[in-house]
């Protein structure tokens, strides 16, 4: 039972609190992602779990044992670092063999396991070379190989794709999923990139200021974010946030709409933040029947190939929407268009606290 429980971690660097009350659990064999912006405490969390970082407070238990104060080497974990951290003065083969050398494994067994891992990661042809002579993708795979060669029970990954170009990132995402399926080890993956978290994580924990604020499946986070912060973190292009106030007990007014809309759960006068995913905003004439319609002006277009992101100016609000390329091609900057959304797709949050307000 190699599950990981992290409870109430606290870590300070001088006057800066890196982790405060950080708690979450990772099930055995799970691919768990920690998603948060830079300096939100992802790396510190991973380092604390691995034992590289001391803690002011908190308990880490792994595999049914309290490992909070266990030595780094005895935790049965491996880590892949953002910079890959390959031993540049050693050959690839020596890099891969190094984790095995302390366990009293015979030379022939080491050679066999290094060979196996190299084959699994398709770096067999580089074994005699120095890491600095490899391409970024190969270096990354060697780093993975070094981390898994000892067959750790938990693999920690600290933004492993940050230093790669976009194409390689795409390939490596698939590679990580493949490895997870083939090796079945528990993986804890820290990333600032919502795309990585959503595509790879079975569950995602969203970090804000050294604390996990939400844990959920990628679908939960996208479709029903718990709070404004999560709604903003997840989804690309980012969610449109519209400030509004509940005018009466069950109604609210958006600046660019003539009529007010209904909401059941907001008390009178409460300030709201209303979220609308760019994908839920559509062209009025073609894509929706009914819904709430209003006109906007196109400020900017960002063609992404298959789709184009439109930056729109509505009265008192800036919005983004996504259109398929062939549709988008009919419009240009400066055009006025009629757009619409289904009120069912709105997300309601408390403006001050950011919590989700349920809507029925």
């Amino acid at each position, binding site marked *: 039972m190699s599950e990981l429980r992290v409870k109430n971690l606290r870590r300070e660097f001088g006057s800066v609190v890196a982790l405060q009350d950080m708690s979450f659990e990772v099930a055995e064999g799970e691919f768990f992602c920690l998603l948060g912006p830079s300096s939100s405490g992802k790396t510190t969390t991973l380092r604390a779990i691995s034992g590289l970082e001391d803690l002011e407070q908190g308990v880490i238990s792994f595999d049914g044992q309290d490992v909070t104060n266990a030595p780094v080497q005895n935790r049965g974990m491996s880590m892949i670092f953002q910079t890959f951290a390959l031993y540049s003065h050693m050959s690839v083969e020596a890099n891969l063999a190094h*984790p095995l*050398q302390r366990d009293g494994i015979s030379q022939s067994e080491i050679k066999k396991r290094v060979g196996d891992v190299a084959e699994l990661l398709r770096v067999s042809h580089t074994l005699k070379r120095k890491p600095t002579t490899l391409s970024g993708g190969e270096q990354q795979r060697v780093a993975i190989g070094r981390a898994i060669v000892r067959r750790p029970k938990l693999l920690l990954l600290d933004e492993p794709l940050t230093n790669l170009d976009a194409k390689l990132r795409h390939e490596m995402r698939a590679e990580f999923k493949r490895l997870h399926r083939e090796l079945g080890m528990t993986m804890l993956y820290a990333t600032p990139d919502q795309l990585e978290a959503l595509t790879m994580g079975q569950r995602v924990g969203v970090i804000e200021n050294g604390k996990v604020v939400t844990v959920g499946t990628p679908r939960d986070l996208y479709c029903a974010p718990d709070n404004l912060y999560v709604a903003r973190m997840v989804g690309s292009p980012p969610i449109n946030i519209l400030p509004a106030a509940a005018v009466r007990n069950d109604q609210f007014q958006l600046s660019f709409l003539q009529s007010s809309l209904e909401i059941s759960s907001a008390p009178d006068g409460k300030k709201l933040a209303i979220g609308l995913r760019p994908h839920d905003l559509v062209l009025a004439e073609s894509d929706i029947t009914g819904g709430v319609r209003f006109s906007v002006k196109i400020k900017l277009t960002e063609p992404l190939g298959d789709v184009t992101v439109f930056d729109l100016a509505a009265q008192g609000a800036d919005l983004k929407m996504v259109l398929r390329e062939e549709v988008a091609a009919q419009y240009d900057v400066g055009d006025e268009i009629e757009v619409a959304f289904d009120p069912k797709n709105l997300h309601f949050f408390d403006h001050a606290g950011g919590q989700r307000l349920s809507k029925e």
Partner: protein
Amino acid sequence: MTKRYREIGKAGWSYTLITSLVGLIYFSPVLWIILTSFKTRTDALAVPPKLFFTPTLDNFASVFYRSSITTGTSQATDMALYFFNSIFIAGTSVGLALIVGTLAAYAFSRYPLRGNDTYLFIILTTRMMPPIVVIIPIFLMFRLSGLAGSYWGIILLYTAFNIPFSVWLVKSFFDELNPEIEDAARMDGASEGRVFFRFCIPQILAGLSATFVFGLILTWNEFLFALLLTGVETRTVPVAMARTLGGEVGVDYGLLAAIVTLFLLPIFFVTFLLQNQLLRGVTFGTVKK
């Protein structure tokens, strides 16, 4: 990133010519001395100086053997001993300073104390005044402790002089390293000692070589303390060189030049051996890793 550097030799003739001219100007005093060491006394003193002459090895022979004026027999000088002294004293003290300095630099870099920078500053203050300021107290201390004239005395002194320099330089090399490599080694099961010796040191070998050579050059040429604190048995070459100047028969420039030429050789040799490392060492951290 596009490569900013073209192949060697692509700079063109004009740049190459200018560079070699400047190089020649820098090298000319050394060249002068080397040429003089192969000249006879007459050639050495000739005005205008001779560029073409019949070379002789007499000067080099008389560095180590000198014929006595009275008896006419050949007699060994102590120069061989002085060369040994120079090599032994400089090598040992710079080596010791490098060992101590590297350990200290690692500690300063990886386990910073409260007020780390203050300590580093204090270490550096010892290099802020001219050494001559401390010569009298040091001379008295050496006299009292009996270190004057001994190998260990002068080695200790040079080591102490070289440590601040080593600490600062080597610390900058450690600071440049990616600490995640050390963390990776720890997670792989390496002990702290292993992390230091097997992972940190190999990465900064170039820097260590550069530090060694710079220290060696400084120590090799040191004259003031050597003059006052070495004895007959522990005299170094710079001191011995100065003593040949004070002969009763005038200055023998050929002999002097021969000593200097021989004196240059070990440094040339070490620098040549380490030149690849040196170049990497002085440019450490200035290029993208």
